[in-house]
């Protein structure tokens, strides 16, 4: 009996393995776990397992193939899997996003679902993949590489039972190769290991018995490395453009359905911009075209124009030249933030620590180092040469100045000292440049260093382009979310850039209220020579928030990044139409937020960006309360203006103080919301009362604000002083009401801030819809997240 039971158990245990061992052909599709996959208990704490277990994207398994993902562990009976069950094996990736591969819309291709995804291994020889196979000769096809046009792989090695079958193989960007290999298996099956010093990407493995005397086929490339590729590129672009044209049509239909502009899309001149820096679509077009330089871009250019794109920043010279010929304004792009690979003799930033010692951070070079300036100048010369006669300008991405990371203050390097010395001489302050660089303290020497830091970005950029072909070109230099809060971190001060002939830009990442600050800060740079631009992102969050952010920026005549797909096409068209409608208008608002040069000087002494952030919070509150504002870096304002000065530690240099007094003497109003009286940069007081500080005769034009911001108080003051402010319309929800004028025509943009609820706005009298000429009176209903532009005069 016992023997019978033993025999039965033996059968249960062995028979599946015997049957499995009978299998001589396998096709494995490496990639994401399939739909419904559950994280195994042993991997509950594995972050990647959790991510992929919860991912909405599930691996599409190629018909006829078996799914292999990082947690496909070997089990007796299953016949294949990873030997080590204690970890995941590599990370899955997938490439079916827009334009990322030549095959992106070729799902009819027989092996598409095997090729589009895979598993990437990172130099881990412990990745052993076991397959049960009976003894014999087998032919393997191993698919290595990545279809993403930005990803190439090199030095990839595959071993079968410890013997190298693929040795240091490489694949180009956007390429998968099928590597054939014959292996002889005696017993114990096949064990594959995937190794590379960097990354090895595996899409699939095919195993079949090898027929005698059939020679190994050649390595096969996907896509083919032949003239066929040009046809694929053209086909892809055609498919892409027609698909996106359909998206655009759908977007336009949606806009018409909502009657945003009436029964049709009005003519919209190209007023908005687009850049490939962050937007996948344009970057991938560049990669695609690099594979087939002869391909035409007429369809793409037409699509962009239809959407309202006027200027596009493209890094590929081929694409840039093509777009230029097709009538688009184009800019090239350069980086200024990262330490270039070819940099030599570069001095790093010397950062002052709180304990008085110095340190360095990896990659943080001194922007004043002659070595970095020479390197960048030479690099720019090479990069820009192919487009120097075509490009309308050059975008400089993240030209950071001298670091301030809360506890680390730069730059105390020798190069910085030399540059400061020169700056002091040029600014007639030679006494501060002679000795050691000033450390944070309330004195004029450190204030000079603070001012030097504010100027450091244009100093850096001008030196970095010197002698290169970029020197004579228009520079557009940008940083993200520019506000006082970010000023000390990156030292990107818009007036300093504008004064140096550089157009200041801001990429807006976060919120509509931050977009407002950035947009007004850029607009205010106009007083210094250049009206800066703000690029908002569309298509990254929910539609209503993106629209609100874009409209916020348009009020200052700025631009938006290009669309990607879906609702962002619609937003882009809306912005283009609205921007045209608001072109050449004057922004009607008499309230200015004061952003003097000294505003965040105390930040560098004891605040770690808190002063700037606090200022941001106050500006946010104005936005939330529908108090429109402009920003001014000085006190030279038109008549009937109010200058709102807020900072927790008010510092004004003597020139700023004199300017304020002049402004007050001329009758403009100062709304003083700081908790204490202003001091000089050396900490000394101007006086102990308003009359001592600003003059007895000027006190009548100063209002001390206790609770700033208080909507009712600011509106009351505006009325008292006959200062123009945006109207506060009665409504059953939150709206923004911004005013503009063009000649005798006055308009108001009314925006429903809610993404979920319609708002009913009470119109005080009859208005006319700008686009439909429809007469509006009584209650105006605005759908969630939408807006109306009305003529009020």
């Amino acid at each position, binding site marked *: 009996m016992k023997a019978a039971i033993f025999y039965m158990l033996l059968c249960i245990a062995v028979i599946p393995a015997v049957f499995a061992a009978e299998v001589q052909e396998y096709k494995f599709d490496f990639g994401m776990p399939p739909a419904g996959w559950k994280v195994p208990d042993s991997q509950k704490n594995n972050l990647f397992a959790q991510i992929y277990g919860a991912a909405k994207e599930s691996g599409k398994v190629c018909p006829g193939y078996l799914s292999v993902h990082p947690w496909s562990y070997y089990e007796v009976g299953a016949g294949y899997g990873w030997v080590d069950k204690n970890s995941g094996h590599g990370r899955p990736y997938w490439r079916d996003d827009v334009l990322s591969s030549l095959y992106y819309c070729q799902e009819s291709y027989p092996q598409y679902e095997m090729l589009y995804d895979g598993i990437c291994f990172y130099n881990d020889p412990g990745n052993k993949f076991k397959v049960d196979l009976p003894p014999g000769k087998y032919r393997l096809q191993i698919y290595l590489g990545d279809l993403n046009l930005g990803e190439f792989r090199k030095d990839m090695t595959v071993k079968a039972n410890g013997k190298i079958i693929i040795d240091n193989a490489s694949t180009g960007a956007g390429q998968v190769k099928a590597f054939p290999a014959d292996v002889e298996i005696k017993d114990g099956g096949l064990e594959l290991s995937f190794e590379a010093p960097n990354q090895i990407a595996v899409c699939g493995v095919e195993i079949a018995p090898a027929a005698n005397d059939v020679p190994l086929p050649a390595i096969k490339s996907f896509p083919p490395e032949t003239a066929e590729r040009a046809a694929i590129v053209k086909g892809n672009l055609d498919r892409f453009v027609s698909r996106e044209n359909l998206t655009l049509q759908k977007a336009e239909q949606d806009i018409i359905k909502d009657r945003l502009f009436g029964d049709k899309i009005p003519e919209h001149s190209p007023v908005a911009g687009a850049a490939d820096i962050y937007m996948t679509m344009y970057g991938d077009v560049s990669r695609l075209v690099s594979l087939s330089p002869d391909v035409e871009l007429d369809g793409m250019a037409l699509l962009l124009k239809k959407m309202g794109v006027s200027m596009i920043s493209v890094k590929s010279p081929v694409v840039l030249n093509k777009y230029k010929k097709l009538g688009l304004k184009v800019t090239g792009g350069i980086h200024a933030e990262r330490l270039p690979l070819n940099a030599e003799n570069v001095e790093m930033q010397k950062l002052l620590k709180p304990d008085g010692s110095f340190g360095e951070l990896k990659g943080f070079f001194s922007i004043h180092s002659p070595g970095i300036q020479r390197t960048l100048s030479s690099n720019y010369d090479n990069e820009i040469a192919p487009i120097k006669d075509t490009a309308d300008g050059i975008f400089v991405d993240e030209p950071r100045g001298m670091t301030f990371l809360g506890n680390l203050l730069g730059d105390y390097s020798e190069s910085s000292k030399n540059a400061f010395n020169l700056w002091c001489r040029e600014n007639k302050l030679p006494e501060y440049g002679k000795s050691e660089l000033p450390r944070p303290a309330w004195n004029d020497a450190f204030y000079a260093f603070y001012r030097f830091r504010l100027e450091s970005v244009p100093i850096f950029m001008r030196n970095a382009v010197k002698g290169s072909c970029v020197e004579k070109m228009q520079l557009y230099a940008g940083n993200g979310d520019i506000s006082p809060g970010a000023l000390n971190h990156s030292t990107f001060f818009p007036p300093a850039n504008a004064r140096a002939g550089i157009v200041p830009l801001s990429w807006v990442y976060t919120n509509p209220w931050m977009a407002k600050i950035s947009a007004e800060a850029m607009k205010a740079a106009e007083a210094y020579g250049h009206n800066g631009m703000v690029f908002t992102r569309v298509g990254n969050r929910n539609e209503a928030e993106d629209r609100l952010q874009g409209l916020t920026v348009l009020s200052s005549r700025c631009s938006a990044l290009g669309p990607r797909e879906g609702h962002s096409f619609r937003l882009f068209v809306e912005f283009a139409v609205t921007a045209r409608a608001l072109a050449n208008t004057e922004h009607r608002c008499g309230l200015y937020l004061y952003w003097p040069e000294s505003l965040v000087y105390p930040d560098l002494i004891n605040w770690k960006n808190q002063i700037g952030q606090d200022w941001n919070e106050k500006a946010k509150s104005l936005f939330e309360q529908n108090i429109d504002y402009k920003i001014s870096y000085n006190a030279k304002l038109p008549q009937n203006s109010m200058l709102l000065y807020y900072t927790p530690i008010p510092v004004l240099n003597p020139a700023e103080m004199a300017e304020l007094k002049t402004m007050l003497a001329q009758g403009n109003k100062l709304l*003083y919301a*700081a908790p204490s009286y202003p*001091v000089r940069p050396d*900490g000394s007081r101007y006086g102990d009362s308003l009359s001592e500080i600003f003059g007895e005769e000027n006190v009548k034009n100063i209002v*001390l604000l206790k609770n700033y911001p208080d909507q009712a108080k600011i509106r009351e003051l505006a009325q008292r002083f006959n200062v123009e402010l945006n109207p506060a319309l009665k409504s059953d929800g939150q709206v923004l009401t911004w005013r503009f004028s063009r000649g005798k025509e006055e308009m108001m943009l009314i925006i429903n801030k809610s993404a979920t609820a319609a708002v009913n706005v009470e119109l005080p009298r009859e208005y006319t819809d700008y686009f439909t000429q429809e007469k509006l009176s009584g209650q105006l209903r605005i759908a969630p997240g939408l807006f109306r532009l009305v003529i009020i005069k």
Partner: protein
Amino acid sequence: MKKYCAMLVCLSVAGMLNAGDYVFDFGPKDGKKAAEGITLVGVKDIYSAENKSGWEKPLRAVAFTRELDARVDEQTRDGICSAEGAKENPAANDVTFIADIPDGFYQMEVAVGDSAKGECRQNICVDVNGLTMIPEPGMGGWGQVVKKSFPAEVKDGKLKVRFYCSPIKKDLSRLSLLSLALKQLTAEADIKKAKDELSKVTVPVKEKAE
């Protein structure tokens, strides 16, 4: 008693308490007897001409002691702490201490905080007779006692010390006051130095705001 001795040591670089020196010890008063020259100040001590020192208004605060906590430094074992944090109740974290003190220049030392681990008492600012001596972002920290010394000028026989939490950084801010000590300055050089320092101190706006 040990607390007072330690306080005297840190206060008086020049020696023991003199006629022009003052020490105010904030904290519980029950059953305690102050050493000579030291004034105990409890939560309920309101200033009056008769009392000569005390709080301007009743406090919404509690007295605390850390004497049972072996980790606590004996110097700063007790104090007065606001009943609520600055975020919940800003008014409870804005108090003024008044004392009748002869006119003149003094070196003042304030001690704030709480040495108990895990207790956060930060962003404490100090104004003395209308001058902001500890400005934004204030002093304090987690589980620590912080002392700061600065000059002060007394005019009209009254010292007014306002303790308040930073209006910006309210999170985790709460007043916790331990002691206040004054040492009169008599040397010419010391007085000159005090005047220089006081000329560079910010002044809260005193005109009426709208």
